[in-house]
C-alpha cells in the first residue's frame, strides 16, 4: 500500500507540475512537452492502481489502458508538432499571441 501511495503520488505530482507548465508557458513546443509530462503522470498513476497490494495479481485493465494511452500520446505529439511547425512556417510565431510589432509578418 505504501508503494502504491509513492507511485500514485508521483503520478499526481507529475500531472500537476505538467499542468502548471501547460498554462503558464507561451511557447507551443513547451506546452506540448508539458502535456506529455501530464500524460506520463496519468500513466504512472494508472499503472500504480493495477497493483494496490503486492500480494494481489496485477490488474490487466489499467495496463491495457496505459498501452492504448501511450500510442495515442505518440499520435497526438506527432500531429501537434506538425501543426506547430506549420504555424511557425506561416506566421513566424511559436505562440498563440499576436506576432510582435518589430517582426515582419
Amino acid at each position: 500500500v505504501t508503494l502504491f501511495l509513492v507511485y500514485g503520488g508521483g503520478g499526481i505530482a507529475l500531472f500537476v507540475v505538467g499542468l502548471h507548465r501547460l498554462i503558464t508557458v507561451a511557447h507551443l513546443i513547451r506546452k506540448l512537452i508539458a502535456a506529455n509530462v501530464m500524460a506520463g503522470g496519468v500513466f504512472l498513476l494508472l499503472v500504480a492502481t493495477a497493483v494496490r497490494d503486492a500480494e494481489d495479481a496485477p490488474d490487466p485493465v489499467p495496463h491495457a489502458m496505459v498501452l492504448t494511452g501511450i500510442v495515442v500520446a505518440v499520435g497526438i505529439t506527432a500531429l501537434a508538432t506538425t501543426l506547430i511547425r506549420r504555424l511557425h512556417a506561416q506566421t513566424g510565431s511559436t505562440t498563440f499571441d499576436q506576432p510582435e510589432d518589430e517582426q515582419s509578418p
Partner: protein
Amino acid sequence: MRRTAGWRLAWGAVAALACLILGLALLRELVGLAEQRAGLTSTVAAALGESGVSHPPTAVLLNFRSYDTWLEVVVLLAAVLGVLSLAERRGLSHLAAPQEVPLLRRLVDLVLPLVILGGVFLLAQGTGAPGGAFQAGAIVAAGLLLAHLAGSLRLDRFPGVMVVLVAGVVAFLVAALATLAAGRFLLDFPTRASYAVIVGIEIGIAVSTALTLAVLVLASAPDADGDRQ
C-alpha cells in the same frame, strides 16, 4: 497582447496555487483509493479461458475491450493523415531524403533483418507473454527509419504505402463486420475462432503501426536541403 513581467508573475502564482489545490485534492482521493480492493483482476482471470489468449493484458486489449484498441488504431491513422497533409512538403513522395553514406548503408543492411526478427518475435509471443502488435510495430518502425535514412530502403518509393497504413483499421473492420454478420455483438468473437482472429488483427496492427510511426517521424522532419528559414 503584450504581457508585462508583473502580470506573468501574478498569473504564474495563481496557476501554481490552483495546481497545488488540485494536487492535494487528488492525493486525498488517492489515499481513499488505496483502501479499496475492487479491481477487475478476478473478472479478467475468470473470462481468460474464453478469450483465446493466455496473457491477460492482450485479452483485454484485443478481446474484452477491443473497440478501445480499434479506435486507438483509428487515432494513429488520423494522426498520420493529418501529418501528411499538413507537413510543408506534402504527401508520401516528399519524405525526408536519405543520406548516402556507404558504410552506414552496409551496417543497416546487416542490422535490419535482426530488427525485423525481433519485431516478429515480440508479435508472436504477444498472446502469451508481454509483447504484442504495438511493441513489435515500434521496433520495426525504428528499423524502417534507419533503413530509409541510410538509403537502403526508400519508404517514399515503396508501393502501396497507403494500403499498409490502413491495414490495422481494415483488419478490425473485417472482424467487426464478420461478428455482426454471424449474428453476434460487435467484436464478440466466438471462443473457438478468437485465437486466429486476434492473431490476424495483431498482424494487421503491427504492420500498419510500424509504417505509421516511421512515416510520422519522416513526414514531420525538416527539409534536408535546409531551405526553410
